């Protein structure tokens, strides 16, 4: 979160995923061999039909679901078998779809908890806090408010801000528009753009295809745990996606 220059495709990718496979318990694979490379300071939208494995994919990246095969690298560092907190220390922050703040804690306490137990992450401290507050001015001056009393949109902002306090290279967002009104969805997506402009790479898993494609640089379509398409977001239209979403994947 240090600059605004987009890097070209030849630099070290912010996120590099190879042959990723994951699933729950003793069940079959939900994520079925995903290869993906994301350039720094871009927004990559991951879209797909319900049950396609989008949330499982992002949970695997965040370390909430064990990797069965493949690898995950963040700016060249292998985090495949790291615990969730170690991934944050390596520069990979995650905002879950729901329950993404601590509702019984205040905004100030959520801010403190965002970094006080992280070890070995550079760029974490008062300056980063000021940068984050400049991105989300609506949170400034409300540190005593309880997170559980915030509106859905405000809670998303707090979740983003808490994740960004760890000064991540890559921010994983799992359906940030879920449960929000259209107006708040627009505000949330604008916040995602601000995050990208601040120099953070964003991987955005989103069910709201129109909203996601409006802000993304690129998009991948996930069907049955596999990538079925990768394209520039501007070249994709929601109307074209029906066939892809419901196409049978071998």
């Amino acid at each position, binding site marked *: 979160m240090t600059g605004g220059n987009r890097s070209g495709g030849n630099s070290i990718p912010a996120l590099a995923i190879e042959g990723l496979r994951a699933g729950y318990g003793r069940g079959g694979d939900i994520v079925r061999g995903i290869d993906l490379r994301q350039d720094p300071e871009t927004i990559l939208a991951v879209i797909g039909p319900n049950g396609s494995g989008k949330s499982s994919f992002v949970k695997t990246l965040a370390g909430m679901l064990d990797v069965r095969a493949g690898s995950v690298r963040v700016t060249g560092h292998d985090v495949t078998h790291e615990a969730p907190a170690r991934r944050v220390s390596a520069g990979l922050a995650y905002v*879950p779809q729901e329950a993404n703040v601590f509702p*019984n804690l205040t905004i100030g306490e959520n801010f403190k908890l965002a970094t006080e*137990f992280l070890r070995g992450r550079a760029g974490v401290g008062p300056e980063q806090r000021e940068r984050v507050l400049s991105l989300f001015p609506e949170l400034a001056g409300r540190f005593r408010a309880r997170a559980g009393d915030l509106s859905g949109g405000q809670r998303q902002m707090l979740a983003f801000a808490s994740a960004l306090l760890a000064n991540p290279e890559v921010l994983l967002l799992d359906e940030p528009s879920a449960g929000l009104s259209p107006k708040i969805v627009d505000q949330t997506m604008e916040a995602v753009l601000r995050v990208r402009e601040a120099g953070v790479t964003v991987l955005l898993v989103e069910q709201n295809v129109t909203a996601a494609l409006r802000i993304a640089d690129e998009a991948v379509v996930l069907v049955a745990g596999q990538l079925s398409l990768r394209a520039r977001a501007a070249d994709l239209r929601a109307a074209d996606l029906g066939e892809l979403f419901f196409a049978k994947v071998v």
Partner: protein
Amino acid sequence: MVAQLFLNGLVTGLLLALPALALTLVFGVLKFANFAVGAMLTLGAYAAWVANTQLGLSLPASAAVAAITVALTGILSDQLVFERLKNRDSISLLVASMGLSLVLENICRFFLGNASRSFDVPISRPMRWEGLRINQEQITTALTVCVCLVLAHLLLRHSPLGRAMRAVADNPSLAATRGVDRRLIARLTWALVGALIGLAGVLAGLDRSIDPQIGWNYQIPIFAAAILGGLGSPVGAVVGALVIGIAEEMSALLIPTNYRQIVSFTVILVLLLFRSNGLLSAKAVRK
């Protein structure tokens, strides 16, 4: 008469506050009702009795021994029992805590027998004030509990450990992404809970004779207090304990004292029927 009963009830409520707070902390952080709270209180009373009468330590030093003993027992129980069951539902953990309760109570019975015992402390005359009779033990209990509650409040509200405990109580998986080690927090919670219950055991031993059933006498009021306040709410547990303590003592105006535990049972029954989240439940906050 009424004022004396109120005072006695207030002190009884303060005594209940420590184990009720401990019960609600375990429920909040570890998500189950610890049925072993009474047996842990018994262990605390016996540990202090051994330190006081067998080793010749002063009562404050014996109280420290009791707090450490029960804290270590809590950590050991977590290591041997609860951590292994962490992915089971809360009923399984509750049943495991019932087993732990039997084990602890019978360890005390096996090594120290069934005889009633008491601390080696000088007998002091009660104070008289405005017609009220105030025992030295009541003053000791009130001061000890108030200091413990202030320290517990500072720990939970203003320390990184307290924030981590509340974060794990709120959302364990999100806490993990913030670097909070749930395993470590569970152990520290048991240590804190054990210390609180151990001290409560000492205060109970000042209030009545120490025997293997001493904890069981407090078990139902402790649960009633925690449920009344709203399981998971530390402030609610303390408020609930005061209400239960005062209500039980004041019930002597209406019913024989032998039946005063009926107050706790009635509170539990009424709450389960009409307000199962209690008065100050943490779940009142929107998720």
